């Protein structure tokens, strides 16, 4: 309760440091989640509904990528973006964009894998019915997505959850620089290391609150009142 009071005090005292951290966290998480949704979900839908030679192998690779340790991804992105790396000229290392790249690499396979798995379960019945009705391709795709909108929103939320809670990769490529790349998770690590537990717990409460608000908002998208045609 004390930590919650401390968190509320920090938020409403408009602590510049805290709001900067929240801003960077939201920018990084929402951008990486959006990019991963745009790439990962269509890829997963395509994989889930298609049958082709070697699909099992592609899926195995995808599922392997979903288990990639964040620090390994952080290391790869670090080496790519470092001064002597192939993308060093982009000068992105220790920036929010570098953190976004690392997060996209981390959560896109997760979203694609989950979307493929969700669509793989429901697509055969939906498509067999739609094919039997000889519906146009566009209508079939629309129906497939709308009939699976609940699980697909859950997939996006899983990606968001993974992104907002991530610490290893963003610490490596972002560098936890104050007023620049410090996010809630890296700040919690730092404050805990300094023995500043109240502040660390308050940051944790804020992190949980953001996750709750996003989940709550997403539940409306999954809601039964959504209609179409």
């Amino acid at each position: 309760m004390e930590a919650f009071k401390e968190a509320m005090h920090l938020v409403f005292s408009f602590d510049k440091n805290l709001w900067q951290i929240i801003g960077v966290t939201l920018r990084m998480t929402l951008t990486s989640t959006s990019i991963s949704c745009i790439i990962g979900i269509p890829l997963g839908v395509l994989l889930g509904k298609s049958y082709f030679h070697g699909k099992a192998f592609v899926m195995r690779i995808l599922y392997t990528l979903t288990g990639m340790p964040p620090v390994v991804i952080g290391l790869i992105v670090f080496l790519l973006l470092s001064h002597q790396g192939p993308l060093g000229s982009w000068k992105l290392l220790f920036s929010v964009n570098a953190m976004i790249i690392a997060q996209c690499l981390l959560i896109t396979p997760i979203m694609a894998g989950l979307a493929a798995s969700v669509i793989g379960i429901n697509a055969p019945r939906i498509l067999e019915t739609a094919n039997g009705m000889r519906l146009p391709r566009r209508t079939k795709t629309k129906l497939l997505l709308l009939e699976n909108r609940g699980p697909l929103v859950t997939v996006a939320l899983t990606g968001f959850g993974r992104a907002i809670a991530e610490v290893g990769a963003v610490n490596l490529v972002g560098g936890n620089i104050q007023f620049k790349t410090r996010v809630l998770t890296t700040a919690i690590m730092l404050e805990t290391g300094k023995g500043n537990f109240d502040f660390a717990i308050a940051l944790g409460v804020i992190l949980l609150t953001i996750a709750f608000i996003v989940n709550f908002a997403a539940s409306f998208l999954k809601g039964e009142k959504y209609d179409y045609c």
Partner: protein
Amino acid sequence: MITVNSVKKYAGERLILNIEQLTVNKGEKVVLIGPNGSGKTTLLRIMAGTLKADSGTIVFADSAEPAYYMPQTSFGFSMSVYKNLLTALPKGLHKTDKRKAVEEGLKNFDLVSLAKKRGSKLSGGETQRMALARLLITPKSILLLDEPASNADVEGNDLIEKALLEFCEKNGTTLVMATHSPRQALNIADRLIFLQDGAIIESGAPEELLNRPQTEWGQRFIEHWKV
């Protein structure tokens, strides 16, 4: 006319469908009967193009239109029943014509009271009635139906049979349908085909097969019907 020539389908090493020759004439109503695993669904799915045969050909002559297919487990889309029927109509149709077609479909299949209910919330029998109403909302040349009334109650069964017969009569539709119900088969069929282990074991007009079943399975089917 539909001609099925030397169609074979394997599940791994096992031959699950082996149809040497089957011809369905224009406007004919053919009913496939057989025990579970006899190949009824496989044959219908191959004819509908949702499953590929390993060999053989299927030719649809006299029809520029594709065959329409209703699977055994038709999907009720989660929109309202009214909108489920709307999805099956061509986009270019005028709003008034669309409404008229949907209302007629709802009436024919006793779905008026369910029009606002979600397609995904219907019972098995209601879903089948809705799926059939959705499919029969516009005239069709060829219909392939896989147990269209398997979940329906007695009234639902009668309704489906009546609507189906009227539809085929009105549009000169060629019908190939699978069922487990002897009564339904005899009420609808111009020709009955008995399938067993993926092959046609008997075929002929219902009266002919009823009086002179040639195979043991045919005899059992007729005894069951008489009971």
